[in-house]
């Protein structure tokens, strides 16, 4: 690079994506923390290893073929064209650009940013097999979603030349459907085959609540996921690009090359997070797990349009989406007896699908991407560019959740099940996945029966409140209005 401005632009872009990759690691720290906390202690270590081992597997397979898929098949192939020119040169695993190369500074960081999206897609699927799935089965399913199916949907609907963008006007700026819809659909496909955990449903079909073994750690995990999500959002943008069709006007763009600003998405990220949290708190009556999950679901429910929404639109849509997905989760659980341990189908699948569908209405008529020569869109802007529209996003949501999410995962889960490789033996599930091979997760955790002064005081107060003993003095401090009425 000999031109200083060009060099600064490229090196800034290189560093920009590199930082997003580091930030997105936090998504997986959060996922690990949250899932380990959500399971019972007898399953913790296997849950951790299952989640952790999919990371290197998706990494190497995304190197072998994932990145090439994204670059090669936006046109279908066979829908709006063939294999894209230059895909092999950029992304074939034997290409010099897939290695340290002095004339290229961007391919590696682009690859890594997409890889971290892939980890996220795979990680979401791990929720499907918690406490009863074989590690090997999940590693196959996670690799399939992380390095194949989500990459296909990204090529089709998350690429400026993707056929869904060019023909249908599909718009999904921060991956409501592209990541979350497909992963939620895959979770649904797997849990339909694997079945519920032992004891989840009673003899009359009643739903039993198998609680997280550590609620606060679940919530901390979700908090860490929020933090990593900043990297996710920023990585979905191109930091500097010329967006003018005549002359030069430099701006950040979304992944389709359409203008947005980091400032704008910062508004919307925070407002949708807040809308989701506030709604989830009310609808779940302050349940910590669902309140924190509601924040995540709020972001996901608006991500498709968070490049362009007004912050208050984001907040309101997030709140509506969260109420819907919360109700839907429990209705599906009761009606169809599906054991979705961490609510992954709801938080990712339903919220992502909601986000895509709503964006089609909210952004109706906006340019989806610069047109590709020879491709005719269903709906166009006055300038002839493919236009965002409700039908395109509705069908797009179905493709993400159903065609690329649910169906492949269901089919592969069925195949694994046919070989007896999907679910652990019942005795192992009863004893716990960690029980035989690993030492106890909390070897010295035997404090439940400890009686100290605090416990004695609490017990005495409880007995007094029950009327089984009288203790003349009440606890020190102010008295709640409810207590004065007793």
């Amino acid at each position: 690079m000999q031109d200083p401005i060009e060099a600064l632009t490229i090196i800034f872009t290189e560093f920009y994506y590199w930082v997003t990759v580091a930030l997105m690691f936090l998504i997986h720290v959060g996922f690990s923390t949250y899932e380990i906390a959500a399971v019972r202690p007898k399953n913790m270590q296997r849950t951790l290893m299952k989640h952790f081992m999919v990371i290197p597997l998706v990494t190497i397979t995304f190197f072998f073929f994932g990145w090439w898929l994204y670059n090669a098949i936006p046109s279908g192939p066979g829908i709006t064209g063939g294999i894209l020119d230059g895909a092999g040169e950029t992304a074939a695993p034997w290409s010099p650009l897939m290695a340290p190369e002095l004339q290229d500074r961007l391919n590696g960081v682009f690859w890594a940013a997409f890889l971290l999206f892939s980890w996220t897609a795979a990680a979401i699927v791990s929720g499907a097999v918690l406490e009863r799935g074989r590690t090997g089965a999940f590693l196959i399913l996670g690799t399939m979603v992380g390095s194949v199916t989500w990459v296909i949907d990204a090529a089709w609907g998350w690429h400026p030349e993707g056929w869904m963008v060019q023909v249908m006007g599909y718009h999904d700026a921060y991956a409501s459907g592209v990541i979350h819809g497909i992963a939620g659909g895959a979770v649904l496909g797997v849990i339909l085959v694997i079945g519920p955990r032992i004891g989840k449903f009673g003899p009359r079909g009643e739903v039993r609540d198998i609680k997280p073994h550590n609620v606060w750690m679940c919530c901390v995990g979700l908090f860490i996921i929020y933090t990593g999500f900043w990297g996710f959002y920023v990585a979905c943008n191109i930091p500097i690009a010329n967006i003018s069709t005549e002359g030069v006007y430099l701006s950040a763009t979304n992944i389709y090359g359409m203008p947005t600003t980091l400032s704008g998405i910062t508004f919307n990220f925070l407002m949708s997070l807040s809308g989701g949290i506030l709604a989830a708190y009310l609808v779940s009556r302050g349940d910590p797990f669902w309140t924190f999950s509601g924040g995540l679901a709020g972001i996901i429910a608006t991500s498709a349009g968070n490049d362009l929404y007004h912050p208050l639109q984001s907040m309101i849509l997030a709140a509506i989406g969260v109420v819907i997905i919360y109700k839907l989760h429990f209705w599906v659980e009761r009606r169809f007896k599906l054991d979705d341990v961490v609510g992954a189908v709801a938080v990712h699948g339903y919220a992502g699908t909601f986000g895509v569908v709503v964006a089609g209405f909210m952004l109706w008529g906006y340019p989806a991407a610069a047109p590709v020569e020879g491709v005719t869109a269903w709906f166009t802007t006055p300038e002839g560019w493919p236009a965002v529209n409700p039908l395109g996003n509705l069908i797009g949501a179905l493709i993400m959740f159903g065609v690329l999410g649910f169906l492949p995962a269901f089919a592969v889960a069925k195949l694994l099940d046919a070989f007896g490789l999907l679910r652990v033996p019942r005795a192992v599930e009863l004893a716990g996945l960690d029980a035989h091979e690993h030492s106890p997760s909390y070897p010295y955790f035997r404090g439940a029966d400890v009686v100290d002064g605090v416990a004695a005081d609490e017990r005495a107060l409880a007995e007094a409140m029950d009327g089984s003993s009288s203790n003349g003095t009440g606890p020190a401090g102010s008295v709640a209005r409810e207590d004065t009425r007793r």
Partner: protein
Amino acid sequence: MGTGLDSFSNPQDIGALYPFVGSEVLLVVVGIVLWLAWHVRQIVIENQEYRRALELYQRVGMSRVLQQGGTESLADEQALATSGSSDTGPSAGSESATGATASPTGSRHSATSDAGGPGRPESAAH
């Protein structure tokens, strides 16, 4: 002898920075074979683990596996194998049959000592 570059004097003419340029396809083939072999080996290891676990649980009896403290109250595999050989039947699930108790202090050690086997040292067991 050199494996790649021997000068950085003309950076505009330099492309690949890694050694052994030309070996990329071979590296990819080796990588894919290793990846697939890893999956196969992982599944074999996991199947072996479950087989061992089921043999152990059958010997001990599931109800005892699920007693207070769960599997923490079980002796380690080696000790159980020793005690299992003196059991009167395959359903040696009662505490007296194995000589172990589900005491709050943990019967892993008592089972080991009762069985008279060496067992694993505590550091390995935990």
